[in-house]
């Protein structure tokens, strides 16, 4: 999956109105909370067939880190 498609899907997962950038810091996003993290784990499973632990996801700093984690 290319970066643009991922950004659109991740934005939708966060239920966010404004577009995301790969360098956005997760902690600075108003939408980044525990429910959003759970929804992101479901996204990883659905789109990347990747099973993640909440702890792994919470260690990521930027949107790009999440993308790389999903693809790894």
């Amino acid at each position, binding site marked *: 999956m290319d970066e643009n498609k991922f950004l659109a899907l991740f934005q939708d997962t966060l*239920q*966010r*109105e404004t577009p995301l950038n790969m360098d956005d810091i997760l902690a600075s996003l108003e*939408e980044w*909370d525990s*429910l959003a993290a759970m929804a992101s784990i479901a996204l990883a499973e659905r789109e990347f067939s990747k099973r993640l632990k909440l702890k792994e996801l919470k260690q990521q700093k930027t949107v790009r880190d999440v993308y790389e984690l999903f693809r790894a």
Partner: protein
Amino acid sequence: MNCSAPNKVLPDFAESDVILVTGASSGIGAGIASLLNSLGATVIASGRSQEKLNALRNDCAEPERFHLEPKDLLDEMDALPKWVSGLVAKYGKLKGMVCSAGIASPMPLQLMELEKARRIFDINYFVPMLLAKGFCDRRNNAGRGAAILFLGSMAATNPLRAQVAYTGSKAAVVASAKGISLEYSSAGIRVNCISPAEVATPLFYGFSEELGDEAPEESVSGRYPLGIGSPGDIAPLAAFLLSDQAGWITGQNYILDGGYNGCGANW
């Protein structure tokens, strides 16, 4: 059914307060939708019958703030959150949502059939949950101060006979409402239930008729010290719970029962 504001105790709403009401074509939902409209809110009224919705709009205080969205909510249930997003694109972000659409038909355990019981759960439980999912999407609600109101039923705590599936569907709504209130309180979304006892609406008369009761109001009047309810008994509390005056109330279930639980047993 026309519930106009009886006095100044009731809250005011602004035109920008857009509130979706399901089950607005009849009974309790119709009463709530017209009261909200008379208090200033912009109402999106949904129900199956276009004819009944038209009649309600003709009677309401401010028809230009009363939008009709006829729909069978069982059609493409999975897509209900998207339907909510579509309404938001058309009318603006939602300040509130009232889930009043529901059905009841007598079903004692002995007569329980999976398909019929599932239909009751679909419309009474899964539809409101999927609508709530759409509402709670942060792109769809007005943020802090947005509120959901579910119609539970006193049957959830005090079931009458032949209500096995209905009572379960309503108990599930009441329990899940608390769960949703917990998940979304940090977003400032409040979630409450009103659980009425018997209210004189087509649902009540239909249920009684199926049970073979020819004088239903008479049969039940003995249960309620204040008599059987009317939609006008429910709408004012609904308006209050959706308003900012109820800003510190979430996760609650209000039983409106004409005195049944308070003094009915000794009446």
